[in-house]
Every structure is written in C-alpha cells, then in structure tokens.
C-alpha cells in the first residue's frame, strides 16, 4: 500500500544515508511478493498465455492486443490519478462515447489537427465539469459522475439524433491504423503517455502532493496544499484520457457513436484495482495500472485466440478482481 514511497526509498537507485539499515533477505523476499505481487501474476499470465497458444507471442498479435486496449489503457491511466487522489469516475465511458461524436464531427468539418486537439480538450472540459461538481459543490464522486455520465451520453445522442456519424475525412484513419517506425500510432501514444505520467506521479511535486491529498485530505490541507485543485485536476486528466480514447475508437471504426466505449468505465476501474491501487486514495502507481492492463488484455486475448465464448471472459474478469482484492487484503492482514 505504500510501495510508491517505500519502494522508492529503498530502491538501490537511491543511495540512502548510511543510517538506513539493509533489509534482511527474508524481508526482501516478502516485500517483493507483497509489493510486486501483481507483477509476478502478470508474468505468470504471459508465460501461461504463450504456452497455451503459439500465436500469442507473435508481433502481429502483440500489436493487435495493444492497439485494441489502447483506449482502455488511456482511461485507466487517468483513473489511476483520480483514485490515488481519493476520487472515482463513473462517467469515463460516457465521455469516450461523446468524444467519438466530437472527433467525427470535427474530422468532417475541420483539419485533422483540430479534430485531435479538439476531442482531447473536449474530454478534458467534461472532466473539468466532474472535478468542479466534486470539489466545489462537494457532491459525492459516485453520484456526480453517475449523473454526468447520463448527461454526456444523452447530450451526444440528442446531437446525433440517435444516429451514428460517419467520418468522411480520408486522413482520419491514421490515428487508429497509422504507424510510426512500423509501430501503430495508438500503441506509441499509449506507451509514451504511460511513461510520462508514471514520471509525473512518482517524481513531481504534483504527484507527491496528490498522494498526500488522497491519503489524508485534512493533513494535506493543513500543510498548505490546494487539495481541491489537485483533486479536480485528476478528473480533467481522466477526461482528457477518455477524449483520446474516443478519438482512437472513432478513427478505428470510422464513425462517431455515443454508445461506443460504454463498457470502458468498469474495465478501467477493474484494471486499476487489479494493479493494486487503493480504492481509498493515497496509494497506488502507474506501473501497477500497466501491469493490470497487460494482465487483463492477456486473458481477453487468450480467450479470443482459443475462441472461447465471450461470456466466460466476463466471469473470469470478475473472479480475477475478487481474487486480486482478496489476496491483497489477506497479505495486509497478515502483515499487521
């Protein structure tokens, strides 16, 4: 639960002062399973997947998996920040859906650049509304984002008159299907953003302040932090992530459709919790979400490769989530 802090403090990269005692081997081993448990599980999943299906480790399949999950990854990345800050967002899926419409409309009537920037900014504005409701009006995040979720989807449907918007701009497909040095654009975007935001969360003043605000709001406030601003900013982040996700969907499917991406909200929350980020704020990490994402993506992919009915995926997802949280609670109980 404190890995971000203690891991960094005891990692060999940070030369500690001489007073810091060396941990014993057994302690280190226990710490590794407690702190990095999700990494082992993910690794296990990858090994198992490559044994089950010889297609799994092919470059084409890896590209497929990653680009399929890029939208989910972007939303989960933002959700990580929201949850570390002690919040919650149920409206991401709705923002993704509405963003596909925004992206399609902008692509049809403006340049590609405007479509990209406009969609992401639009998502950020939607997130800003959530942040304002939660921090200014002090509405419970669950309620606030449940309500805006309904509003965003409804507004998008009203705009499209419940139809889909077909993209006519021939260049628009580049976002989802284009490549940079042979790698799909969406994958490059996903990896780059994960690296950048992992750094921001663990190494910047903003990131450290966010942990404090989520871990103990009162203490952070008394230390002179702008807790409301910090928390509101996380909703803007997840909103922008959802905007980018909508952009990718619209480009892949060449349509704007408010109902696209509705399932992404719960999947993103699943990924974040699977990684081990706390539901109560103040603890978690971007690498955790990355591990959770890879694990979930691997399992989904294996089911697809073996052509197992998709209902089984859903059951597995649920079992996985309960196992992850249950194991986490167990190790924590034993530790105390």
């Amino acid at each position: 639960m404190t890995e971000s802090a203690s891991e960094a403090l005891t990692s060999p990269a940070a030369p500690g002062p001489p007073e810091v005692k060396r941990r014993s081997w057994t302690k280190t081993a226990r710490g590794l399973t407690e702190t990095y448990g999700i990494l082992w599980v993910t690794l296990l999943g990858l090994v198992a997947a490559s044994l089950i299906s010889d297609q799994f480790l092919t470059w084409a399949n890896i590209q497929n998996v990653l680009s399929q999950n890029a939208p989910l990854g972007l939303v989960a990345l933002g959700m990580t920040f929201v949850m570390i800050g002690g919040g919650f967002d149920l409206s991401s899926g709705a923002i993704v859906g509405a963003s596909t419409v925004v992206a399609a409309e902008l692509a049809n009537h403006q340049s590609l650049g405007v479509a990209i920037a406009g969609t992401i900014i639009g998502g950020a504005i939607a997130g800003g509304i959530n942040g304002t409701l939660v921090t200014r009006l002090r509405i419970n995040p669950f309620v606030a984002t449940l309500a805006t979720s309904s509003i965003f989807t409804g507004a998008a449907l009203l705009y499209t008159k419940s139809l889909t918007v077909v993209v006519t701009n021939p260049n628009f497909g580049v976002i989802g299907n284009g490549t940079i040095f042979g790698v799909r654009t969406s994958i490059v975007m996903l990896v780059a953003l994960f690296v950048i935001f992992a750094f921001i969360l663990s190494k910047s003043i903003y990131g450290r302040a966010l942990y404090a605000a989520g871990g103990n709001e009162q203490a952070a406030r008394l230390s002179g932090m702008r807790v409301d601003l910090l928390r509101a900013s996380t909703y803007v982040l997840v909103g922008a992530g959802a905007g980018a996700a909508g952009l990718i969907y619209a480009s892949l499917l060449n349509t704007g459709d408010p109902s696209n991406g509705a399932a992404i909200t719960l999947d993103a929350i699943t990924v974040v919790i699977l990684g081990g980020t706390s539901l109560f704020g103040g603890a978690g990490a971007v690498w955790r979400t990355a591990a959770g994402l890879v694990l979930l993506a691997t399992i989904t992919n294996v089911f697809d490769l073996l052509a197992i009915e998709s209902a089984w995926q859903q059951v597995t997802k649920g079992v996985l989530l309960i196992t992850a949280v249950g194991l986490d609670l167990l190790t924590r109980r034993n530790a105390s």
Partner: protein
Amino acid sequence: MTHSQKNSNGRGNPRSEIAIELEGIDRSFGATRALQGIDLKVRRGSVHALVGENGAGKSTCLGVIAGRVAQDRGDVRVFGEPLDHNNPRRARAAGVVSVYQELTIVPEMTAEQNVFLGQVAARGGVTQDRAMRNRYRSLCRELEVSCHLDVKAGHLSVAEQQLLEIMRALLSDPRIILLDEPTASLAPHEREVLLRLMGTLSRSGITIVFVSHNLDEVLEVSDRVTVFRSGVIATEADRGEITKDQSVEAMLGRALEARPEPRRFEPSGAERLRVQNLNVPGAVSDISFDLFPGEILGIGGLVGSGRTSILRALAGVSPNASGQIWIDGKERRWPKTPRNGRRLGIALLPEDRKTEGLVGPLSAAENIILSDLSGSAHSGVIFQRQIIESSTKAAQGFGIDTSRLSQPANNLSGGNQQKLLLARWAHSRPSILLADEPTRGIDVGAKQEILTHLQRLADEGMAIVIVSSELEEIVAASNRILVLSEGRLVGTLENTSGGVDEHEILKHIFQTQTGGS
C-alpha cells in the same frame, strides 16, 4: 449504580474474589514480542491500573482480556471461567465491556442513538423510545454530565463523545469495565467526574481495569498498579506502596531526568504577531493578544473554552473567523484557508495527529517534507535523494530513528508520530507554530522530549502557542499564559521566571465561570 449480580450462564462464579486471571500470556506481532509470560490477577471490585510506555504491552494486555487480541499462549479466566481465545462476544457475555482509545462514535447519529448503538431497547421488534430516553437521562444524572439527547454526536467534543462511550458500556450491566486511556482527552473537571465515577462503580462491585499515561491519577484512584515494560510486568503494587518516581523508574527502567528549569524569556524586538478582536461565532469572542519571536505562549482553559478555536482560526481552518491580525507589524487579512495561513508563516500542529496531521500510508520521510515539497524539488521534479537528505536532517534533531524513515507513518508509535510532525515544521520553518495538545496520548518519557523540542524551536526564534489540557505542562513550558473561560479571555499571567502555578490558572477560570454548563 443499578447493578445487579446475575449468575446467568457463562458468567462464572460471582463470588470469586478474583475477577480476572491471566496465566502465562504470550503474544507476538511479527518479530515484536508484545507480551511475554504475563501473569496477572485483578481483584473483584477493584480499580486496577495498567501503566507503561507506549508499546510496553498494556493495551495489548487489555485487548487479550477483552477477547479482541488472541494470545499465542496462556489462559484468561473471568470469575474462574476460562475464556476462548479471541472471542469478544464471549468476553462480553462474561460481563467484560471495553471503552477503546479510538472512539467508536457514529458522528451522524444523535448522542442518545450512539449510547444505544447495537443495543436498542425494543419490544417485539419495535423500539422503545421513551424507555431509552429515560434510561439515557438517568445515566446522565449518575455521571453528572449535561444531557445532549438530540445533538448529533459529531458536534460534541471529544470529551463528551467519550462519555457517551462510557454510558454505552454501562448499559449492558457490566461486571468488568476495561478503559483504554479514559482521561487522555478530558479537561480537569471532566477528569474529576470520571475518576469519581470509577470509584463509585468499583464500590458497587464492578471491576475496573484501565490504562493511563497520567501517573498522578493512576496513583490517586487505583487500588493496584501493574507496571509494564517491553512486554513483561516490571512491578506491581497496591495503593500507597509505590510513589510516582518509583513507577516512572519501573516504566523506563531508569530514573527520569529532573524537569528542566522553566524557560526564561525576555521579549525583545518587535512583536511577531498581534491579534485583535478575534471572533469565531459560537466559540470565542473578542480575543486580543500578542506574541514575540522566541516566545512560548500557553493557552489554559477547560475543554470547550475555545482554546482550540483560537489556534484553528489563526491557522485559517475556520472560515467564519474574523478579526484583525498583524504579522511583524504589518496588518494582514485574516487567513481564511490553511494555505493563506501558511503564506503568513503560520503552521498548526493539530490535536488529532491521525486525522489531521499524518498521511498514514506515505513514508515517514515524505510526511516530514510534506509542507515543503518544492524544497526537495528542482523545477517541479522531486528527487528521492533530496527527500531522504532533508528528512534525515530534520529527523535527527528530534531523535527519530532514521532507519525507520522509509516506513509508513502509520507504523510509528504515537510519540514518534508527534516528533515527525514537529520535524515537519522544523523543516519548513514557519515563523509562528500553533501546537494543539502536543503531548496528548504520549508516554511520560517522550512527553518531556516533545516539550524540549518545542523550546528549542522557540530558542531558534520561532514564536509558539501551546494549548494543553495539562496545566502542569502549560506552566512548565510557557513564558506567558492566556486564561480562557467560555470563549473569553479572563486573564493573562506573566510566567517569565516560572512563578505561576496551576491553581492560579484554575482560580481565574472558576472565578469567572457563570455557572455550570
């Protein structure tokens, strides 16, 4: 007390002279041996105190009796009846009830609902509201406390919430009451009420086992004292057989250093802070005072007299506070947010370390630098090495074990947590430090240390305001004392050479009191 002795099933032999018997109790938490071979007998109807430093094992011992903590080895017998391991329900059925240090009050429920929490009086599934209200009123009368029937418990002071907790314990017709630090948060007169009540209860046959840090009250009220040190019983004695110094020695395993001379202080230079006509609606009115660099100003008064409100208003935590404030001779706008307060150089060491001070899951090191993250950063990027360096430097001055800096703050003892918070402000150097109950819930050894650290910060030029329920402490530490009563300033006592004693403060308080609350 309306206490009837039942001999229902599982309640043992009520005539047994020994109420509680522990035999060979061992309990470890990880590598820490919290209790080692504890043999303890508690006589029926006695008041039995468990004392010791933080982590000595006294609270664990209480937990074992309550069935809340499972022992690794050994037996617990209540009135001769063996209790299962780790079975709070079984202990409760045997007549053992506990009042925990961490209050279990539901803030959104009324005072009365809190008292009847989990034991609502009902007939045929229908609640008996009138019976409950009457019972509640009679309990209030017995305890001589004011009756807040329909007030939300969250609006009551910690002291009042604790009384609710004790009333709840009394409802179930207990034979043994376990109290963990019952007086830690009470004002002197409330403390008196509670101690007297403990006497009354024990005379009516109820056995009381309590843990306390306040040796004076322990020696005053208990029939027997058991002193714990690092998981074993250091010594045991009946009333009158042990002095305060002897018990401190037993607790620490060494003699306590003599209390240092009162700090001498001559105000020199310009005033650091001037406050005029501070008003916080419903808490304090018309408060004016000043504060010099290097001075320690104590605020004395009962719980609820507005001591904390003054500090919180200064720190910018009370948005509805109003008044005039000068800092270093310059008039400023009254701080309305903690951030504004910090900008003015004002920092608050809050009364409640857990909920307002520490960010528990973060490491101790990060907690130290929390109020000055940019001090460990270059252009927005924080360097781990810088965090360790700054926090180690700050921690060393306060005797914090630097090898524990990477641990979560939650894992540290109360004394170390408080030192951590002091280190936080020593690190970011506010010009005015407001310390609200800085030694609450901290054991004797560490208490003096905390006060010494505060004095050192003052020596280095910080202006400090201390609020404490322990008048002794105020007198020992402060150069000047403001006496508050019912939200008004009723006296200022010069204490430059340590001439003031506790009674003088009390006299001021009670002279001006307009009758009971």
